[in-house]
């Protein structure tokens, strides 16, 4: 094990996969200078301008060109800079990349990874802070991944690059500097498998991406009050690990879903509805969701914080779930 940042773990994943497979290449704006966050630092020197390609500010063409390049035998890694800018390339991702395999009757596949950094850090306002994972989980044909730790960013990105279908890969901007233990040997994390970040039997908290860390902090505080929460980090949102979530909720009888994204029509609704439909008789309390209010994300910290699910909100929600129901 070595200590590595979330950012460098992703960088290492790209290096290892590009060394392993000549068909892998990356394209996006400013990659030669390392990418906006430094995820590609030094890679153009290592792999050359053809395989770490600087592109025009043409998001639609970056995505569309990747589709064509994937159809002709290469495995592009698309860098969208901010997930917000990927909205300039929705047709290319949703109508083209996601549909081609099916629509053309399985004649070929579109192996590409679309890196779209998501989430709030500080004062980036409404067009540089969003978490839009639910847009993609809704689309047949896409795999959706949202790593929360350095080790997972290494192992999941490597698996995503090896996947033969388009993968939307959502790194959280606020986690770039996060340090964690990362295996030094080859490390692959299977897509579609959740991580039980903390075991417990009082309540199941399902989360992903940046909110994993808030949930773990809340669980730590709750443990001090004798309430043991099980925190499940989904890691992959499509396909999501139904078995792990269901097994946990069967044991705890209580579910809280926590997401950074706007709660309304968020991916958390999918988890909540699936559990409510399938595990009604195991539930000791109604399922709960926490997410952002339906407001654009603001710039001033005092306003921006209104869009955040804070640790206290998670603690309060868990306390509400474990409190004896007055009707009992």
């Amino acid at each position, binding site marked *: 094990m070595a200590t590595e940042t979330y950012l460098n773990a992703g960088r290492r994943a790209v290096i290892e996969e590009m060394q392993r497979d000549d068909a892998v290449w990356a394209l996006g704006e400013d990659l030669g200078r390392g990418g906006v966050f430094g995820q590609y630092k030094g890679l153009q020197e290592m792999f050359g301008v053809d395989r770490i*390609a600087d592109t*025009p500010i*043409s998001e639609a063409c970056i995505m569309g060109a990747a589709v064509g*390049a994937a159809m002709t035998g290469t495995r592009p890694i698309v860098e969208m800079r901010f997930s917000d800018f990927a909205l300039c390339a929705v047709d*290319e991702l949703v109508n083209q990349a996601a549909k081609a*395999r099916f629509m053309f*009757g399985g004649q*070929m596949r579109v192996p590409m990874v679309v890196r779209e950094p998501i989430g709030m850090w500080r004062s980036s306002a409404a067009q540089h802070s969003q978490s839009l994972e639910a847009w993609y989980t809704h689309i047949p044909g896409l795999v959706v991944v949202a790593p929360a730790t350095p080790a997972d960013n290494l192992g999941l990105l490597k698996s995503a690059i090896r996947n033969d279908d388009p993968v939307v890969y959502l790194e959280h901007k606020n986690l770039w500097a996060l340090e964690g233990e990362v295996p030094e040997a080859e490390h692959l994390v299977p897509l579609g498998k959740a991580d039980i970040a903390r075991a417990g039997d009082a309540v199941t908290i399902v989360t992903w991406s940046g909110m994993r860390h808030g949930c773990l902090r809340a669980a730590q505080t709750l443990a001090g009050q004798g309430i043991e929460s099980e925190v499940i980090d989904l890691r992959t949102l499509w*396909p999501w690990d139904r078995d792990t979530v269901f097994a946990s909720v069967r044991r705890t009888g209580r579910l809280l879903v926590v997401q950074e994204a706007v709660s309304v029509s968020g991916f958390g609704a999918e988890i909540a509805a699936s559990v409510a439909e399938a595990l009604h008789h195991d539930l000791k309390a109604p399922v709960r969701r926490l997410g952002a209010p339906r407001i654009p994300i603001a710039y001033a910290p005092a306003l921006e914080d209104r869009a955040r699910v804070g640790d206290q909100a998670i603690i309060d929600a868990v306390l509400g779930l474990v409190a004896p129901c007055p009707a009992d």
Partner: protein
Amino acid sequence: MNDAHNLDRERFGAVLTLMHRIRAFEEAAIAAQKGGLVLGAIHPSIGQEAVAAGVCGNLQAADLMLSTHRGHGHTLAKGADPLAMMRELFGRAGGTCGGKGGSMHIADFGVGMLGANGVVGANIPIATGAAHGLKLQGSRQIVACIFGDGAINRGPFLEGLNWARVFDLPVLFVCEDNGFSATTRTRDMTGGAGAAARAQSIGIPAEEVDGNDVLAVDAAARAAIAAIRAGKGPVLLHCRTYRITGHTAVDPATYRPAEEVEAQRANCPIHRLRAVLALSGMDRAALQQIHDRAVQEMNAIAVQASETDWPDPAAAFSDVQDMGDPRERAY
């Protein structure tokens, strides 16, 4: 005027055959739609056959081509099997896409036809990327990208052409200008001088040709493809033609005067090539036979396609993606 006496009669006899086959395919498809056999919308290319034949006739088998919603002609010209195409229009098993795509999503990767597209202009970045992929792999093949005049008013046109220039990619862009963006005249919706001028402003050599003169299209495409294959980067051809039918097979196209359509019928690319071939000495019976054979072929194909089974309903769940259960939480 092309010199009829120096004409390569064998080659252009084959071109005429292809153009008749395209027209016969479209006419058989329109008739089949009236009979309820074609399930979705079709966009016929009647009157535009010279573009498909002149461009695709100069591509090698291993070259790639991307088309539009009006793509039957391009697809046939690239070498796809018309029976599989007709089955696709009829939504049958054995269609080019197993009945999953229909007319607007016909693709045949086996002959380098990387797909029609239901989204105007969407094939431009994909074609550009296909060429990028080929170049990265050291291939000598080229990509032809055919789109309508309406597509030049979408952003991906600018993004794709700029990209192809910046990376010096082997792409032949073909603007197949039939005058209409669906039911609106494109010239009323387009600033400046159009496709060629826009390409030139990006540094891409561009040429305008009479898209109803297959000899002119053929010569221009041949020269452009030779330059592209020599590594000179992208070229754009702007082919002016005319859409004889409505936008779709059921569009009566009452938004244009009948005299205009009649004048354009007289300018039909098939008639024009027949006249040149007749002048070069090909006899009338041979010319007539080319027409008759094409009609027989496509009519027989329509019958055969109509006798094909429907796809297995289970195929609705296949080839979505490797991971996850497509039936999850559904009915």
